C-alpha cells in the first residue's frame, strides 16, 4: 500500500471475527469492524474527511478556522486535517471529560473552548443558551469559519453510507449481516451503515446503544441527548438499549485482553451490548447467523477514565519506604518539636530545615535558610533510601505538621537518629510570630 496523503488511508478497515470461545454465542458469528485502525484513530476520521474535504479549498483561500462542537474523536481528526492544510481548528464543547483527549488536542494545535456550566441561580431573563449563541456567532456575516456541523451534516452519514456499510457487505462476501450493533453519538455511523445494509437486505436488524442516563461513556449519548442530534432518527433502529459505564469497561477489557483488539470504552460498550442482545435471541433459530459491531476508537486515550472508575485495573505493586505503610501509632510517636523548641534548636545545632510544601508556597514565604523538597518529590527520594547523612539533624516542616510527622516517623524507621517534625507546621510558626521570609 502506497499513498500520497495520509487521508487516503482513511477507510477500508478490517472486519475481524471474535473468537466464539470468548463471546460464547453458539450460532451467531460476531464480527468487529475495526474503525480504531483509521489513521487518526477512530471512526470519526471518515466523517471528518467527508465533511471537510469539499470545503477545504475555499477555506484555505479565505484563511478560515475549522470549528466543531466535539469532545473527542471528530475534533482530533479535524484538528489533524485542518493542520495539514494550514488552517486553525477550534473545538467548542461542554463534555470534554477525558484529560488525555484534551491534551492530545492541544498538542495537535487545537483551540478548545468550554461552554459554561448551568447557572446555579436560574435567570428567567436569559434568552439564549450557549449553543444558540455559538450558532449565531458562526452564522454572523463576514466570519471566516468552516463549521462541519457533525450533528446535522448529511455528509457525516454519507461517509458511512458509501464507505463503512459497503465495506462490511464486501468483507462478508456480499452478504448482509443479520444484526448491526452501533453506539449512538452523532448517529452518523449507525445511520449511514444501517441505510447501506438495508438497501442490500431490508431484513437486517439494527441495534442502537446509548449510555445509561446517569452514566458517562465517552462518545456515546444518553437517550435524551440523542434527541438533540439532527441526524438521529428513531426509525433507524429496531431497538434502542442502554449500556452502563461499568459494562462498557467490562466489554473493553474483553476486547483488549482476550481478543487483542485495543479498543476504547465505546467499542467495549458496543461489544457488551451486542453480546447481551444476541444471547437473548440465540435460541430463536439454529441456522448460522452473523452480527457486526463497530470498535470506534483506541484504548490509550482513556486510561484516566479507567483509573477513575476501575482503579483496581491499574493496580501497582506496593512500594518500599512509603509513608502510607506507617501505622497511626508510629506516626503518633514521631519525634516532634514545638515552634519555640525548633527556634532554639535551629540556633544551636543548625539542623537542615526541609519545607515539604509546593514550590509556589515556599517561594511566597518560608523559614529562613530552609530548603524546599516538595512532598511528592520527597516520597520518591526516600523510596531509594535515606537522603541525608545520619550525622545531619533534620527538621521537617509542612503546613500543619501532619505530613512532616509521617516522614519523621518514616525516616526514623529507616534509621535516621535525629529527624524531627515541626509540630503545627508553618501555620503554627506563623501564628507564633516567628519570622517567615521571601528571598
Amino acid at each position, binding site marked *: 500500500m502506497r499513498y500520497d496523503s495520509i487521508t487516503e488511508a482513511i477507510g477500508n478497515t478490517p472486519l475481524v471475527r471474535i473468537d466464539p470461545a470468548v463471546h460464547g454465542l453458539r450460532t451467531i458469528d460476531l464480527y468487529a469492524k475495526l474503525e480504531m485502525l483509521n489513521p487518526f484513530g477512530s471512526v470519526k476520521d471518515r466523517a471528518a474527511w467527508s465533511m471537510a474535504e469539499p470545503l477545504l479549498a475555499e477555506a484555505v483561500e479565505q484563511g478560515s478556522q475549522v470549528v466543531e462542537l466535539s469532545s473527542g474523536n471528530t475534533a482530533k481528526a479535524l484538528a489533524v486535517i485542518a493542520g495539514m492544510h494550514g488552517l486553525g481548528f477550534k473545538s467548542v464543547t461542554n463534555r470534554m471529560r477525558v484529560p488525555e483527549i484534551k491534551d492530545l488536542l492541544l498538542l495537535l494545535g487545537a483551540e478548545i473552548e468550554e461552554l459554561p456550566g448551568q447557572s446555579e441561580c436560574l435567570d428567567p431573563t436569559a434568552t439564549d443558551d450557549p449553543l*444558540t449563541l455559538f450558532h449565531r456567532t458562526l452564522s454572523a456575516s463576514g466570519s471566516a469559519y468552516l463549521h462541519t456541523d457533525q450533528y446535522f451534516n448529511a455528509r457525516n452519514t454519507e461517509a458511512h453510507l458509501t464507505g463503512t456499510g459497503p465495506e462490511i457487505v464486501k468483507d462478508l462476501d456480499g452478504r448482509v449481516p443479520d444484526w448491526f450493533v452501533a453506539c449512538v453519538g452523532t448517529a452518523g455511523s449507525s445511520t449511514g451503515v444501517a441505510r447501506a445494509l438495508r438497501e442490500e437486505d431490508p431484513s437486517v436488524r439494527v441495534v442502537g446503544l446509548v449510555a445509561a442516563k446517569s452514566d458517562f461513556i465517552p462518545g456515546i449519548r444518553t437517550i435524551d441527548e440523542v434527541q438533540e442530534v439532527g441526524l438521529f432518527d428513531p426509525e433507524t433502529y429496531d431497538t434502542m438499549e442502554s449500556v452502563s459505564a461499568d459494562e462498557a469497561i467490562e466489554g473493553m477489557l474483553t476486547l483488549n485482553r482476550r481478543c487483542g483488539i485495543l479498543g476504547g470504552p465505546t467499542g467495549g460498550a458496543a461489544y457488551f451490548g451486542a453480546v447481551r442482545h444476541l444471547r437473548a435471541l440465540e435460541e430463536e433459530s439454529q441456522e448460522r447467523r452473523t452480527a457486526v459491531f463497530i470498535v470506534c476508537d483506541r484504548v490509550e486515550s482513556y486510561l484516566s477514565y479507567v483509573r477513575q472508575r476501575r482503579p483496581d485495573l491499574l493496580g501497582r505493586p506496593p512500594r518500599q519506604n512509603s509513608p502510607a505503610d506507617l501505622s497511626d501509632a508510629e506516626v503518633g510517636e514521631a519525634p516532634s518539636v514545638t515552634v519555640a523548641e525548633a527556634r532554639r534548636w535551629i540556633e544551636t545545632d543548625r539542623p537542615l530545615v526541609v519545607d515539604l510544601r509546593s514550590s509556589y508556597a515556599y517561594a511566597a514565604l518560608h523559614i529562613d535558610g530552609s530548603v524546599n523538597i516538595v512532598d511528592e518529590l520527597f516520597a520518591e527520594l526516600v523510596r531509594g533510601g535515606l537522603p541525608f547523612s545520619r550525622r545531619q539533624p533534620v527538621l521537617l516542616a509542612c503546613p500543619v505538621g501532619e505530613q512532616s510527622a509521617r516522614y519523621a516517623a518514616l525516616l526514623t524507621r529507616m534509621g535516621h537518629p535525629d529527624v524531627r517534625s515541626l509540630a503545627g507546621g508553618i501555620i503554627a510558626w506563623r501564628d507564633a510570630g516567628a519570622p517567615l521570609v521571601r528571598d
Partner: protein
Amino acid sequence: MDGRPLYLEPRLEPRLRSLVAAQNTLHSLTDGLGSPLHVVVPDQIAENLERFRSVYRAHHLSGQVFYAHKANRSSALLRRLAATDAGVDVASLGELQHALGAGFGAGRITATGPKNPEFLWLAARTGVTVSVDAVAELDQLATLVRKHALAPVRVLLRLSGFETTGVKVLSRRSRFGTPVGELELLLEAAERHADAVDPAGVAFHLDTTSVAEKATALEGSLAALELCRSRGLRPRAVDIGGGFGISYLAEREHWEAYTTGLTEAVLGRRPPLTWGGHGYGLRNESGTLRGTLGLYPAHRSVAGAAYLDELLAQPAASLGGRPLAALLLEHLYDLHTEPGRALLDQCGLTLARVLEVRAQDTGGELLVRLAAKADDIALEDHGVLMDPVVIPRGGAGPGGGPVAVHLFGSLCLETDLITRRTVFLPRRPEPGDLLAFANTAGYAMDFHATRAQHQPAARKVAAWQDGDAWRWCLDDQFWPITPLRGAQ
C-alpha cells in the same frame, strides 16, 4: 395520564421528615396563622454548618463559612447561626442591621454586592469586612473613612473574568468584580488608600454549577494573591463565594424519568407534561430537540459540603498540579465560603391549604387551587421541580390512587401557577388538606413574595424538636435561648 405517574419525591432528612409527619401540628399552625405559612427549622442550619466545617477540618483549612443572608429573611435562622461560629454575608443595609442585631460581631460579617453610601458607612463604622467591586468603590470607601475619621477597613478585592491557559472556559460575564486583568489598577488604588483600607485578600463569586469554572477562578485567585504579595501586601484570605447547591429529590430515577418524559413531550411523542405545553427551555425544531433545559438540576450526586470538598480536591494546573486545598493550606491562606442555599438545605417547608379541587369536563388533570400565591412558593421561579407532600385534613382521607393535578395560586391572574408542570400526587387532595412544599428555605420563601391584590405574604414560624414533640414560635420571637427549647 400517560403510563406511570412521574413523581418527583422530595428528599427529606430525619428532621424535616419528622416535621412533615407532625400532621396535627401543621394543621393547627395553619388554622391559627393562615395559609400560606413558612416553617423554618433553625437547628438544621447549625447541623449544615457543621458539615461544611468538617470539610474545612479534613483539609486542615481555617477561615470562615459566611451564610449568604439574601437566601432567607428569617430572624430565627440568623440568630441560630449567631450562636455558632459562622459568619454572615450581607448584601444590603437592612441585612447588615439585621445581622448586627442578631448578635453577629463585625468580625464575622462581610458586606458584598451593590452598596449604597449608607450601607458602606455602616459597614465601615462597625468594622465589617467589605468585598470591594471596583476601584471607584475603593475610592468611595476610603473617602468615607477619612472624612469620618474611621479606623481602616478590611477589604477583599472582588475579582472576575478569570482566564485559563490551554482550554478556554467560556464563563458567563459577571456584573460584579474587577476583571482579573485589571488587578494592578485595583492594587494601585489600595496602595494609594493604605491609610484607610487593609486589603485582606481577594474574593469571587461565580453563578455556575461547574466545578471546573470555580477551580479556574480559585487558581486565578491564588495567582492574584501572589501578585498582592509581590507588591508588599500581606493578604490572608480568599473568598470563593457559594453556589454549592442542593439535591432536592430523593430519587435519581425520578429526575431521570421526568426529564426524559419532558423531552418526549416536547417532541410530541407523549401528551404534554406542562400547562400549555411549556417546555422549560426546550423546543421542537422539526423533530430535533433544541434549546437548553432551564431547570435546576434537582437531583445531584454531589451538592453542598460535598461539592466544596470536590472543588478543593481539583488540581491547579498552573501551580504544579497540586490540589487547591493543599495550595491554600501551604500558602497559609484562610478559605472563606458564602453558601446560602446549601446552608439552608432541609431548613424549612411551606404549607398551603387546598381551597378547591375541580375536575375538567374533558377529563385529564384535576385543577387544584391553593390558598397561596405562586410567589409565596417560588420553587418554580428557581427552576426547582419537586412534588408537595399531601397532609390530609382528617386521617387518611379518600383514596382512589394517583392523580395528575395542576396547582394554581390565589391571584386573579392567568399566570399565577404554583407549578407550570403537571404534578402527580399519590392520592387526590381534598379542600382543607395541606400541601407541604419541602426544602423551600433557600430562596423559595420570601425572595419573591409580594402583597399583590391585598393578599397576605406568608407568615413565618420557627420550629424545633422537644423530645418527640414539635414546638414553635413566631420567627421573630425566636432566640437561641427561647424557653422550651430542649432541656432548660
